[in-house]
């Protein structure tokens, strides 16, 4: 490849885009977590209050949003392990791009069975 990046090794391509993805998913998970602690806190109000709110989550639109949230968490988790390898493993920086493809591969391997199970449960299972 002749395209030597000017000025920085990290601009564009795997290094930069994985960082963008890590940042976007990290913030999204954080805001979800704030809401998730609040809705769970309703168990302390009353069983009825908790069940009413949780039942509003049990519909196809929320099932899709949940799938998106899990997709974000699984990417952030595997890419986080990649960041740790880049920082602590001697060969990490050299293989950072290959590691990202490993992250994407693992993400697919986890997400396919998860989606089959979760969407089946959400769209057909239950009461």
């Amino acid at each position, binding site marked *: 490849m002749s395209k030597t990046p000017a000025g920085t090794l990290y601009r564009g391509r795997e290094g930069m885009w994985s960082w963008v993805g890590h940042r976007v998913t990290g913030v999204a998970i954080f805001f979800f977590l704030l809401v998730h602690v609040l809705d769970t806190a309703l168990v302390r109000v009353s069983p009825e209050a908790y069940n009413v709110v*949780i039942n509003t989550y049990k519909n196809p639109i929320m099932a899709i949003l949940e799938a998106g949230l899990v997709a974000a968490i699984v990417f952030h988790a595997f890419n986080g392990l990649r960041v740790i390898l880049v920082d602590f493993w001697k060969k990490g920086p050299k293989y950072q791009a290959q590691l990202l493809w490993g992250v994407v591969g693992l993400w697919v391997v986890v997400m396919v069975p998860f989606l089959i*199970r979760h969407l089946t449960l959400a769209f057909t299972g239950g009461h």
Partner: protein
Amino acid sequence: MAATTEIQAPRSGRVAPEYTRHGRSRGSFEMFAWLFMRVSGLVLVVLVFGHLFVNLMVGEGVHAIDFGFVAGKWADPFWQVWDLAMLWLAMLHGTNGVRTIINDYAEKDGTRFWLKAVLYAATAVIIVLGTLVIFTFDPCPPNAAAELLPAFCPAP
């Protein structure tokens, strides 16, 4: 092609001396925060994946989640400790991550100060609330309809 990028000094506060303009370290807080992101990340992989698997994949998955389900889990100290550790680690990890992002993008001192003030206030409220809920939770609240409670609650 003579465009040069100006690299500004980090705005995060305490950084290693070779990266500061004034040439001396102001403590090791940023180093500790950096390490904490990695250590908490490793632990969170186990806690979060276990949480998602038990709540979404086992049995009836999402359909099973109701008061009785949560009460059944938190009647067991194992899940209380699990969820408490997950709450604290995820909140501190997420808060430190968002702090980094605020430092990166908010250029005015005042904007940075207020965004972080709101962030830390929200974090404190959520951690205190979540901790209280886990510790003061009663799986068999008096006066609740029996069919909403887990099976092990004494009959009213």
